[in-house]
């Protein structure tokens, strides 16, 4: 295993430390340093590296995750995402709190290859362009985000949302999933397929199905204070790293965009997925009324 491969999983801090320790300057110093100073240096270096690189995982790769009932499509995401910028939020609302959604979408954009990953001249994606998926879920105590899942490195391909639900390190499985978020590394708006990805559950007859409301994979739905089903949502982080755009949509195709100035979601359009009728190099965008910019 190469060092370069491992460092894909390291934090920028860790990468900085590793890079700096590889400089010729340090090697030159080493050659002339006294023996006891070398010992002090090594001890310090080891401590710094341990601190910088511990818990440096950024995401999980789809192929290393377990599947529910052994079904390849039912990926189970571990949770919560251990990212200092992504909080677990205490809230008694029945909707996923924005105090968690927005930091999570921002953190998605910060992952390697998640944004600005297209060549500005050709419009083609760079080899490191990556799509990540997370689930938003609720525990008996708070709201949480699952770890991001990506496909294998070196392959330009879409991510698999955790249709098998979440395994939370504190509360285990059978937690209701309220929807999935993902990023678009080349900054495009929602694709037609994006609009129709929602949580999955096992029905009473033992059949797996996707539903338009918040549900645990065992089929137990989340209910609001009036005992009603809670609609699921989809979320997208796109645009550029320095000018991100965040969208969310519900099963009716109502699309909202986050307005940072007003600190709220603004209705944009009602959109319907389109199926491709011709062969071209892109998926047909959804048909929206009014048209999306």
């Amino acid at each position, binding site marked *: *295993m190469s*060092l370069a491969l*491992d460092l*894909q*999983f*390291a934090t920028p801090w*860790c990468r900085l430390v590793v890079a700096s320790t*590889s400089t010729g300057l340090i*090697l030159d110093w*080493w*050659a002339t340093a006294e023996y006891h100073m070398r010992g002090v240096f*090594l001890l310090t*270096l*080891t401590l710094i*590296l341990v601190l910088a*690189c511990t*818990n440096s*995982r950024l*995401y999980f*790769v789809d192929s*290393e*995750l*377990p599947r529910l009932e052994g079904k*390849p*499509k039912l990926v*189970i995401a*571990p949770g919560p995402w251990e990212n200092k910028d992504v909080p677990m939020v205490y809230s008694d609302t029945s909707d996923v709190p924005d105090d968690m959604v927005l930091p999570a979408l921002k953190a998605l954009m910060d992952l390697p290859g998640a944004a600005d990953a297209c060549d500005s001249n*050709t419009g*083609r*994606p760079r080899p490191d362009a990556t*799509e990540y998926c997370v689930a938003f879920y609720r525990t008996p105590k708070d709201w949480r985000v699952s770890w991001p899942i990506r496909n*294998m490195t*070196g*392959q*330009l391909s*879409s991510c698999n*949302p955790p249709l098998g639900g979440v*395994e939370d*390190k504190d509360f*285990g499985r059978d937690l209701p999933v309220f929807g*999935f978020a*993902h990023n*678009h*590394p*080349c900054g495009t708006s929602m694709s037609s*397929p*994006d609009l*129709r*990805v*929602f949580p999955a559950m096992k029905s009473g007859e033992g*059949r*797996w199905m*996707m539903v338009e409301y918040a549900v645990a994979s065992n089929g137990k739905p989340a209910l609001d204070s009036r005992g009603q089903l809670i609609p699921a949502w989809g979320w997208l982080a*796109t645009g550029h790293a320095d000018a991100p755009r965040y969208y969310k949509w519900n099963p009716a195709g109502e699309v909202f965009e986050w307005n940072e100035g007003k600190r709220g979601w603004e209705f944009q359009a009602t959109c319907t997925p389109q199926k*491709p009728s*011709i*062969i*071209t*190099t892109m*998926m047909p965008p959804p048909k929206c009324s009014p048209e999306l910019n």
Partner: protein
Amino acid sequence: MLKAYHFISLVLLSVDGGTVAPQSGSLGSGADAGIADAGVADAGIAAPPSSAADSIRWPENLRPLATLDGPAVLAANAALQRVLSRFPKEYAGACEYSARSMEVVVGQEGGLYFVRIDRRADRCGWAPGFNLEFDWFELYAVSPEGRVLARYPYMP
């Protein structure tokens, strides 16, 4: 003899290689993501390099063929096999990763066949109108002899 820079490299490798995957309970496959990446890479034929894709003139508005001639069938089969080969081997047998859930659309332009593979979860018992993944897109350029020349490098 162990030189100083050898030792530093060893320290770096051992520390980073030991990065703990915060998995819990039954999630504990114990595989480091880096290992998983390297070990479960492309299940079969490697994707053509992107330079191959650069040399192709990809269609922008190509009408699919209504009737498939022999070379079109060869092209469709080659692209479908390429898609299936990209799935991990352990998924073989699952409907969603088999030809059963794939739909093949073929067009011809500039002496090449362009084949798009769509995914149909409803063929595997899922309700129509839902998708099992975001942004699935597989488009291939195939020669009339059935040789896959390139996969279109698509990301949204």
